């Protein structure tokens, strides 16, 4: 009946995926920015010390007795001591000629007088940061240019950077996990009104067509409004058709009773056999019609009461006993024995009239299909769960129809010649559903139909 709806993705997953991938991208960007920034700061720190060392060496340059002396202080190199004992290299050039230090340490060509220039170089198989500057001294005869380069390896720096990277990575992962949790929470919260609506629609009984009145988010407002309108229309049209049927049945019943009494009276008077036969079949047809009308009324009543159950404690044993007593005269007409097996006492909480109606319809059915001098057994028990079982010795249900028999106006294939409207089982099933009970149809191994109500 319901066509298969195609599912394309999930709103929550889509939302979460967007949020999480956003967080991942953000985390990675954050990592590189912070790391880059930290690297710059650390490098600036090293550069500052190199520059201080450089200027302390340049400051120590003097011309004494015509020759250059560079009596740089102990602190020039002492300040370059690091936690990881980085190596230190330097070179001092006088007008381009090495006068002290490491001869293979590169000296940049363009050195400004005042400003030190910095470079990262590969020296002695390791990365080193090199700072260079020069100073011009004016001697008695000539101008002398002293250029100094000082280099330091970057062990301590890279350890600091690694430490920072590790911390930033940790921080980034933490951030990512937090965002993931948050996005899960956020999507769950966002999607929850939708889920609530969906589950409340699912949970509703088939007859519940009342509008949704709980508050909904503005985005869902149009959907729920349309849904409510649809339901109201559906409810209205259903009610109208039920009303129509009930009204029609009601209107037909009274004239039928009149026609039947006339037919009975006429039957007393006519003597001709064929006339009497015609009248008898007329009476039977009238009976059938009025029975159908009253079942239609019953059904309408049940539909109405299902929405507004008037629950009260019911003693099922008494209820069934009463029904059997009432139906006993009809049973006697067919010489049918009505047995009542009470294995246990069952107390129910439900709508008395509905339950009585349902069980009467079931016993009624059994009487109709039961053969003359047959036995109908009504059993009540609680093991394994509370149940009521009606078992006759009739032809049983046609196996093909077992699933459809409870639908309105559906009758079994073997019902020919038996008065009925096809509403009896529908009524019983509706009542069972309204009470959260279950109606089971089956055929007994030794023949006969078996109807079970499981409470």
């Amino acid at each position: 009946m319901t066509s298969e709806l195609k599912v394309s993705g999930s709103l929550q997953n889509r939302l979460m995926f967007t949020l999480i991938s956003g967080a991942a991208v953000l985390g990675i960007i954050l990592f590189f920015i912070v790391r880059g920034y930290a690297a710059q700061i650390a490098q600036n720190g090293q550069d500052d010390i190199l520059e201080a060392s450089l200027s302390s060496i340049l400051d120590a340059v003097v011309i004494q007795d015509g020759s250059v002396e560079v009596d740089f202080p102990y602190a020039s190199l002492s300040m370059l001591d690091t936690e990881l004992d980085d190596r230190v290299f330097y070179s001092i050039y006088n007008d381009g000629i090495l006068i002290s230090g490491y001869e293979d340490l590169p000296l940049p060509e363009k050195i400004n007088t005042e400003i030190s220039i910095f470079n990262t170089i590969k020296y002695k198989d390791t990365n080193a940061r090199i700072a260079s500057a020069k100073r011009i001294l004016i001697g008695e005869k000539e101008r002398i240019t002293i250029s100094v380069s000082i280099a330091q390896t970057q062990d301590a720096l890279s350890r600091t950077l690694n430490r920072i990277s590790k911390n930033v990575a940790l921080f980034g992962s933490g951030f990512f996990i937090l965002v993931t949790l948050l996005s899960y929470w956020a999507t769950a919260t966002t999607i929850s009104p939708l889920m609530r609506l969906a589950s409340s629609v699912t949970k509703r009984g088939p007859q519940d067509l009342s509008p949704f009145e709980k508050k909904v988010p503005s985005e869902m407002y149009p959907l729920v409004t349309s849904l409510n309108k649809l339901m109201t229309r559906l409810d209205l049209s259903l009610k109208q058709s039920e009303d129509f049927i009930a009204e029609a049945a009601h209107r037909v019943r009274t004239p039928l009773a009149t026609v039947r009494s006339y037919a009975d009276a006429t039957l007393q008077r006519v003597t001709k056999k064929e006339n009497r036969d015609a009248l008898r079949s007329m009476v039977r047809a009238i009976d059938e019609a009025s029975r159908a009308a009253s079942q239609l009324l019953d059904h309408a009543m049940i539909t109405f009461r299902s929405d507004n159950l008037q629950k009260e404690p019911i003693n099922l044993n008494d209820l069934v006993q009463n029904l059997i007593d009432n139906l006993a005269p009809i049973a006697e007409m067919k010489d049918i024995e009505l047995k009542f097996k009470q294995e246990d006492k069952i107390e129910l909480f439900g709508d008395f009239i509905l339950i009585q109606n349902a069980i009467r319809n079931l016993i009624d059915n059994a009487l109709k299909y039961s053969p003359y001098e047959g036995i109908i057994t009504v059993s009540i028990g609680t093991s394994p769960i509370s149940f009521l079982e009606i078992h006759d010795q009739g032809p049983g249900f046609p196996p093909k129809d077992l699933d459809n028999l409870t639908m309105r106006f559906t009758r079994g294939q073997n019902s020919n010649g038996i008065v009925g409207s096809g509403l009896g089982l529908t009524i019983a099933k509706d009542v069972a559903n309204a009470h959260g009970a279950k109606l089971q149809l089956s055929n007994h191994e030794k023949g006969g139909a078996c109807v079970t109500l499981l409470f």
Partner: protein
Amino acid sequence: MRNFIILIFILITSSLSANEWEDKKVFSNGKNTNSLSILSSTDTSFFAPIIKSFLDKYPDIKIEYFVTGTASLDEIFRKSPEKYDIIISSAMDLQLKLVNDGYAKKINQIDHPNWAKWRQSLFAFTIEPAAIVLNKKAFKNIAIPKTRQDLIKELRSRSTFFRNKIGTYDVRKSGLGYLFATQDARTSETFWRLMEVMGGLGTKLYCCSGDMIDDLVSGKIAVAYNVLGSYAEARKKKSDEIEIILPADFPTNMMRTALVSNSSSRVKTSETFIRHLLNTQTEKNNDKTHSLPPLFLKPGQQTIILEPALMTYLDKLKRKTFIKEWERAIIQ
């Protein structure tokens, strides 16, 4: 002619290969599967106990022990770093520069206090003071000087007695002497005053602590300045001729250090030796039979710090200036 050239070549090569060692000794238990060659400035008698205890533990190793002065040690090693596995020297500055220049191997699995190592390559294993050592007879009835100031006063007041009876390192020849002198000069101006006074009295210059102590014991000199305290201590045990003073104004303490050559082909064995050396030289394990003092800083005691600044006075220009000034003071 050709023969003559070959002869010269042979002479040159043989003189290069056969360094003039102060001492050379091979330690072995007979069955050698491994060998180690140690280039050291430490006298054999001081280092032999450590080698012997090592051989007790690892009997299949042969150790060649070469002794030379600190300055020539640096030169020899730089020329052929692949010939020697372990370098031991008291000249901390030269050792540190060797590491800085990439001659030493990093040994990562050694746990050693931070102040006693550099770049996980240079490991200190003793703390030894620079001492003023006196001949007792020369100071028989006089108060013994406790500081450099006291010594200056004493030398000045008895200048005729002390003339030509003072000794110290020739800082041009000895790496350790140069280290002591530069550290003294860095710490206090008193050093230069002392040098001037000593220079005025005609000071004898020595290559090594051992020679200085010999002359002190024999009475050739009465005062020696900046002698290795550990060597003097060892000699004092044998003959009570000398008095050792650790100057109270500012003591200078040096650390003897060891490194493994980066070009060594026997790294594993070398590392084992270094580990053994550092282990025997801890205060706990260093028993009295060992002549070298342990690596132990008494509370308040300071030592020359292992830092790049040690290379300051190794700078060509700085060295030239320092030596010039030193010569001006001491050789008058």
